[in-house]
């Protein structure tokens, strides 16, 4: 389908942190500053915006980071990630309802289920890359949607699975108030992001990038490309599962929306908008889209797709680096440094068919 030299949607800044000389003080200081700023933002979020919305942002941010891990670093666009987010949401919801598990455990059970689901889907899907991969994952997610919809006894069908408790070892504040729930859930969100960051910056992550940029070469070097892809697919599904489980429990119910293809579309939108292959971008994208949707719901404007669709088209056409990538470039230019990945940007133009 595509020539071996062709790269898939690229993680612009993906490889750059490692490409930069280690121990370069400015860069590492900046990285720490960024991390500190991110943490502060995460901590004050429910003070500045309505706590349930803050929780939505956190969940979507982790979901987008999970997708970015796959898209930005392995070059695989999954258009069926709702299967893992939603599959985990249902399992987490069910375990919380029927077994009364405290929510962190319920979410973990959900995430494990998402990974178990991702294994066979990943095995089948990685047989094709590029666009095929997107279509195949979409179709598998749709299959799960139908199963969930039909299996009414378990899932409540279109009524959804209602009355999911947010059990937290009897701590009333967390169980009842969105504000405190956010802080109880935050460690899992940040833990998930940290894991994604670890994966990216591990030898495993570097092999991934290699399989993305040049699968044939990676194969020639003796790497089992498919195996790497399945592994990152499963990890990504697990993180999406954590996000989906937390989302469901924070809302107190799970609905079909969670496994619908529009949810897969939304997370792709968030990731691309924020900036593919940057991890940070996924977070920025989640902040923008969730707040936008929330504001539009009360604005009286009845065409969300017109706004998100147009913004998305503009981003894909003009700012393929996304919000994060574009801003990072601008900052780099202003500080007189070479933009992190001009080379990649130029290569974008050359690797056409």
């Amino acid at each position, binding site marked *: 389908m595509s020539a071996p030299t062709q790269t898939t949607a690229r993680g612009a800044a993906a490889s750059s942190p490692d490409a930069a000389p280690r121990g370069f003080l400015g860069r590492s200081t900046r990285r720490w500053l960024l991390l500190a700023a991110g943490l502060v933002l995460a901590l004050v979020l429910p003070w500045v915006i309505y706590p349930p919305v803050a929780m939505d942002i956190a969940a979507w941010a982790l979901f987008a980071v999970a997708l970015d891990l796959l898209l930005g670093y392995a070059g695989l*666009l999954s258009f069926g990630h709702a299967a893992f987010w939603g599959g985990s949401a249902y399992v987490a919801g069910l375990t919380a309802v029927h077994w009364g598990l405290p929510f962190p455990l319920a979410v973990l059970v959900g995430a494990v289920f998402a990974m178990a689901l991702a294994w066979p889907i990943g095995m*089948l899907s990685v047989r094709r890359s590029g666009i095929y991969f997107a279509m195949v994952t979409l179709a598998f997610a749709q299959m799960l949607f139908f199963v969930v919809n039909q299996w009414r006894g378990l899932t409540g069908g279109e009524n959804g699975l209602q009355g999911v408790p947010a059990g937290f070892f009897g701590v009333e504040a967390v169980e009842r108030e969105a504000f405190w729930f956010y802080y109880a859930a935050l460690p899992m969100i940040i833990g998930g992001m940290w894991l994604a960051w670890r994966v990216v910056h591990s030898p495993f992550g570097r092999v991934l990038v290699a399989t993305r940029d040049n699968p044939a070469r990676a194969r020639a070097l003796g790497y089992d490309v498919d195996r790497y892809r399945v592994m990152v697919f499963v990890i990504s599904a697990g993180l999406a599962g954590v996000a989906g489980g937390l989302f469901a429990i924070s809302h107190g119910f799970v609905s079909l929306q969670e496994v619908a293809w529009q949810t897969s579309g939304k997370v792709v*939108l968030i990731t691309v908008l924020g900036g593919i292959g940057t991890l940070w971008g996924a977070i920025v994208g989640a902040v923008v889209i969730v707040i936008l949707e929330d504001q539009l719901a009360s604005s009286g404007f009845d065409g969300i797709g017109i706004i998100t*669709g147009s913004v998305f088209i503009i981003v894909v056409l003009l700012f393929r680096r996304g919000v994060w990538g574009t801003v990072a470039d601008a900052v780099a230019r202003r500080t007189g440094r070479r933009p992190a990945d001009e080379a990649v940007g130029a290569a974008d133009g050359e690797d056409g068919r």
Partner: protein
Amino acid sequence: MNEILQYTVQGLAAGSFYALAALGLAIIFGVLGVVNFAHGACYMLGAVTAAVLLDLVGMNFWVALLVVPVLMFVFGVLLERLLVSRLTALDPLYNFLLTFGLSLLLVDLVKRQYGVSGLPYTRPEILTGQLSVGDVRLPTYQVFVLVFSLLVCLGVWLLMTRTRIGMIVRASTEKSELTRALGVDVSRWVTPVFGFGIALAGLAGVLAAPFRAITADMGSSFIIILFAVVVIGGLGSIVGAVVAGFLVGLVEAFGQAYAPTLSQIVIFVLMAVVILIRPAGLFGREENA
């Protein structure tokens, strides 16, 4: 026995919509390397345009069958020139994303303009009722859809095999690197081919107008089945798209008749089986990556 014949015709009729639209998808993919996510939205636009033209200027079904695809061709040409062409040099995923955004935009624009409850469409008198062949009664419209789309597919096939343009398109679809290597200038044909693919989706939409609900969302689930169709048929294959389109229609009809609760899942199971056994699809060639 009668029932089996009935289900077969109904399945093939349902498959006609998939076959026509998938054919458009396959041709566009072949020449541009783009998977058009907005194909479902274009199918919807075809139906909506037919309904709007009927309402505004009283254009009847038969005229719409000609005019709407032409309009959709123009729409496709504009789309290719203004948006898609800017990204063809890049990874094809970007165009996949672009057309995804486009489908969100188109669906909501239609919703705002023409409402959410659907548009009315008067069916042509001559196509109502049922045809009786012996004991078997078949809805006239279904038979018409089937015959009509078979003729269109045949026409496209002749175009592909008997004309120079067709040869170039087919060659670049099925052996793109080779075609380029031989110095054939494919680029001239990119824009019209894109328009042609969109026109086919629009045509499927017009055919759906008398028969299905005309709403902004009508293409949303259609596109997902369409993806399954091209995966089953093999993305790079024109014949594969058509055969898989009809095949999926049949699977759907018999699934609905004998295992209704599973009928939607069956298609995806079929897809999974195909990927397992022949990753490139029934008619596709093996990937060289």
